[in-house]
């Protein structure tokens, strides 16, 4: 292939108008509802998460007010339990995760040189799910029925017997609803980083922030499924009495703890990595140099991703696991400090290498150093088993986790916001406000949490609301409370500073910090289409990009186009056509919301209607995809002709499906873990003899056979087997329905409950398989599948193969159980 040459320059203003018309959205309310633009959605994520941060912050002030005296006559215990549960849950699920998603969604296309994210409608869907799910949780708080079992929702306290109210259901359903946005963002971010970089940008040349976000997104793909599985199982137990966690019927509360912390510990690194990515991006700019040890930092990120999945048990050192098993997790927990230390020393080395300047973002980074290092060290202490036995579930841990999360996430995010605000708004900060906010937050933070270590060492457990018999805890708690309000004032001042900056800050030029990354080459404030042409060799500066000298200038085909590249080398492969403004994200999210509400209010007979409505509305998403036109090359630049995405089998959708199946497969693996764990570890096993008869084996074999047939059909060219495969999937569903009737009562024992859940999993996959197969039938009929355009067939085939594999594994599992 010859090297593409730059396009001839065009009138920049005309290009700007052309692109704005295609990539823009209608003004007013309608525009807000239909927008799918990554800058707008990313910004909305950040704003919404800041609103939730404020709510959770107010809750923490209520906690501190209650604990300021020993007989806290301020809140009653029920309300206090709701408030601390909601403080943790909101901060984790409705602030930290959405905040980092928003930042990544906003920045990544601009940093990587793309015009939008890989699946714009999916990011909008994610935001609406987040908004609706978060609103349900907030309304529950206002109604006095918020979750009150702690953010970790340990069973059996959260089971129906001990939490009969709607509170726990609000948590399980609301948080799972919000997790849709986390999974959507994870898929979105992974595919965007892997396939939508600027032409020629190799994986190893990416800005470090992209590496960090790739690690984060990978962790989210694998980290959230355990929580989602746990939440679904617990909700089924609460709603229908299937005993996954009830020890009397073969369940085990420890299964919940394993699933929760399999998510919960990686979660900490999911939160830390993007913040570290911001540090690695900002620090070198503040030091007028380049980052030290790019390769070592990438290795550290990958190491963290890997190691963070091996240490969830350190939250469970006191549950009675044998000491030698704890030793492994203790060592792993300590080992995870190594990649963190590598990064910290690389950052210090960068400071020594350059000439650091104490500008506002750097000030916040100093806040990071002065808190996170201590939080990391107390974290290592907590990894040491005997010490953990003493301080576990005391205020010492509360202090530690706030040092890590505020030090490792909030301070770097404040640095990031200070750093990228000129990009968001085109304005510089109001002098002095950010600095004053910094000192208030820093002093308030250490005043609150440093002494809290001592409070914990003096024996104060977490989550208590009164301590009438312990006068020695009064003074440290009072100190924490007073400084807590100082910190709150600091955050309020920070927010005020941002508002004033947006309105009154002095205008800034293109690159106020002298940074090297691509996002600063874009006009300020940024445009809806990011760049008029994508950077290629010979056209990399802002002016030539604006004049359309780069690849894919303007919007000559009146559709939203951006380049898709090879995952590793960054060689351009095809031109992706992205969907435009749509009502579908909000209507889909609303439909899911209706289903969630039906479940929440216990209208289980109506809930299947909700599922049917979700399936119906999901079907409408495919309307945009595909083309009826034949193969045509698009001239991206002189010397570079590429096909449109509809004509290639390996498009963004296929990469997205691979990511989806990784998450799905993780969920399935967690299910298998649950089966194995209960079988081996739980008391009250083996289960009573099964009454599943021989005929059931035939039904199961028939199901697997039908799915194998569908999988075979999916291999035929041009979706020829789609009709047959759709029928096979439906027949499989019917066989499974017969099989369901023959299963043992799922409320009797965990084994049977797990079988029921597994059967539901296969049904779900067969239904989606039937829908995808039918989509191929429709596309064959209307010409969207033909010799040169694969339509949905490659995506369908992946799904079909996965369905077959998971169903076969499940069948084999049940056969093994019966044989044993």
């Amino acid at each position: 292939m010859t090297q593409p040459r730059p396009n001839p320059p065009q009138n920049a203003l005309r290009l700007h108008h052309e692109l704005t018309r295609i990539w823009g959205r209608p003004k007013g309310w309608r525009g807000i509802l239909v927008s799918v633009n990554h800058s707008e959605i990313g910004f909305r994520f950040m704003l919404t998460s800041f609103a939730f941060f404020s709510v959770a912050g107010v809750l923490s002030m209520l906690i501190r007010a209650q604990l300021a005296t020993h007989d806290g006559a301020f809140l009653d215990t029920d309300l206090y339990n709701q408030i601390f549960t909601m403080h943790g849950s909101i901060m984790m699920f409705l602030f930290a995760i959405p905040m980092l998603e928003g930042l990544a969604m906003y920045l990544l296309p601009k940093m990587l040189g793309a015009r939008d994210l890989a699946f714009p409608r999916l990011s909008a869907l994610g935001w609406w799910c987040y908004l609706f799910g978060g609103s349900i949780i907030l309304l529950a708080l206002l109604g006095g029925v918020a979750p009150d079992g702690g953010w970790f929702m340990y069973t059996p306290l959260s089971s129906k017997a001990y939490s009969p109210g709607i509170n726990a259901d609000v948590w399980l359903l609301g948080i799972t609803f919000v997790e849709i946005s986390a999974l959507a963002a994870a898929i979105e971010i992974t595919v965007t980083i892997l396939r939508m970089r600027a032409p020629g940008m190799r994986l190893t040349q990416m800005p470090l922030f992209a590496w960090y976000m790739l690690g984060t997104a990978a962790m989210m793909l694998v980290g959230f499924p355990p929580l989602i599985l746990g939440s679904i199982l617990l909700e089924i137990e609460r709603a229908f009495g299937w005993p996954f966690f009830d020890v009397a019927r073969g369940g085990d509360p420890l299964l919940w703890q394993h699933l929760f912390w399999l998510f919960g510990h990686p979660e900490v690194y999911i939160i830390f990595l993007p913040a570290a990515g911001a540090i690695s991006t900002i620090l070198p700019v503040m030091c007028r140099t380049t980052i030290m040890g790019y390769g070592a930092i990438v290795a550290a990120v990958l190491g963290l991703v890997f190691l963070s999945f091996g240490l969830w048990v350190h939250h469970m050192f006191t549950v009675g696991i044998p000491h030698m098993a704890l030793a492994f997790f203790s060592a792993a927990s300590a080992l995870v400090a190594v990649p963190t230390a590598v990064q910290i020393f690389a950052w210090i080395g960068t400071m020594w290498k350059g000439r650091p300047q104490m500008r506002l973002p750097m000030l916040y980074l100093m806040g990071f150093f002065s808190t996170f290092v201590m939080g990391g060290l107390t974290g290592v202490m907590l990894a040491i088993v005997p010490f953990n036995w003493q301080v576990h579930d005391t205020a010492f841990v509360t202090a530690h986790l706030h040092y890590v999360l505020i030090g490792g996430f909030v301070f770097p995010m404040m640095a990031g916001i200070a750093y990228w605000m000129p990009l968001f708004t085109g304005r510089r900060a109001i002098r002095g406000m950010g600095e004053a906010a910094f000192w208030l937050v820093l002093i308030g933070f250490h005043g609150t949490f440093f002494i809290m270590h001592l409070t914990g060492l003096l024996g104060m457990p977490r989550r208590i609301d009164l301590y009438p018999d312990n006068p020695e805890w009064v003074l440290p708690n009072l100190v924490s409370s007073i400084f807590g309000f100082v910190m709150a004032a600091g955050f309020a001042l920070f927010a005020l500073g941002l508002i004033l900056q947006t309105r009154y800050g002095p205008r800034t030029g293109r690159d106020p910090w002298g940074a090297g990354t691509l996002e600063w080459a874009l006009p300020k404030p940024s445009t809806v289409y990011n760049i008029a042409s994508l950077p290629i060799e010979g056209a990399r500066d802002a002016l030539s990009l604006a004049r359309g000298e780069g690849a894919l200038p303007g919007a000559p085909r009146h559709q939203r186009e951006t380049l898709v590249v090879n995952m590793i080398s960054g060689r351009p492969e095809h031109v992706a056509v992205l969907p435009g403004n749509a009502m579908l994200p909000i209507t889909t999210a609303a439909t899911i919301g209706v289903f969630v509400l039906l479940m929440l209010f216990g209208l289980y007979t109506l809930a299947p209607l909700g599922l049917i409505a979700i399936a119906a509305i999901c079907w409408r998403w495919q309307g945009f995809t595909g083309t009826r036109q034949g193969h045509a090359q698009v001239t991206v630049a002189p010397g570079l002709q590429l096909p449109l995405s509809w004509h290639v089998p390996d498009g963004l959708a296929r990469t997205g499906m691979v990511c989806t199946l990784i998450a799905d497969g993780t969920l399935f693996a967690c299910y298998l873990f649950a089966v194995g764990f209960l079988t081996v570890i739980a008391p009250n096993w083996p289960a009573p003899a099964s009454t599943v008869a021989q005929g059931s084996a035939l039904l199961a074999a028939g199901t697997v056979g039908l799915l194998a047939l569908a999988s075979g059909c999916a291999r035929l060219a041009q979706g020829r087997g789609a009709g047959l495969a759709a029928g096979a999937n439906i027949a499989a569903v019917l066989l499974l329905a017969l099989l369901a009737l023959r299963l043992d009562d799922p409320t009797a024992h965990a084994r049977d409950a797990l079988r029921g859940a597994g059967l539901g999993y296969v049904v779900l996959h067969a239904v989606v398989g039937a829908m995808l197969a039918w989509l191929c039938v429709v596309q064959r009929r209307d010409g969207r599948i033909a010799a040169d355009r694969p339509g949905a067939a490659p995506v369908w085939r992946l799904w079909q193969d996965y369905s077959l594999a998971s169903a076969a594994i499940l069948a084999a599992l049940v056969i093994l159980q019966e044989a044993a």
Partner: protein
Amino acid sequence: MLAVPLLLAGCEGPLSILDPQGPAAAQIAVLWWAMLTGAGLLTVMVMALVWLGFRRDGPRQPSERFWIHGMGLAFTMTILAALVGGGLWVGERLQPRPGPQVHRVEAIASQWQWRFRQPGPDGGWIETTDRLHIPAATPVDVVITSQDVIHSFWVPRLAGKMDALPGRHNVLRIKADAPGLYHGTSAEFSGRGYAGMRFEVLAYPPDDPPTLTDEGDE
């Protein structure tokens, strides 16, 4: 000068980890003071390195190799290896191993009280509520379980904590060096009555056991 007695006085308390009265709590307290010293030195070192980064006329520039391999890998791993090894050594010594004179009691948690059962002098079971009687200077194995949700048995001045789980019987070794009253608390959130879920451990002189009356209803 004034700070030292003030600091030590600040470490006292009925639930203080820093005021140990048994071998397990004492070893963990030693571990804590050692880790605190190390962590304090490391914090000062890292902050000093950050501060030195701002000095324009700083010392000779160390290489990337020094920062990444030297500090990030070698230095960190040496400290961690020593610490994890030390922690395991202490943890192993705290395990409940069978011995000739180990006293055995049962602790049964429920929302929101502790019941303790142990064999009486006449061979029958004696049950007490929210107060556990143990012989001082004798290793005691507490067999811990729960009848409803998860709780945690914790007497900070004697030993670390152990969870009470429904359907399981966890064993925690405690030992009080001297006779006395030691406070205990539940340390796992258990709902409305959690804050008040306290209990006492009364260590009696081994040669002078008290006469206990059975409070159980069975």
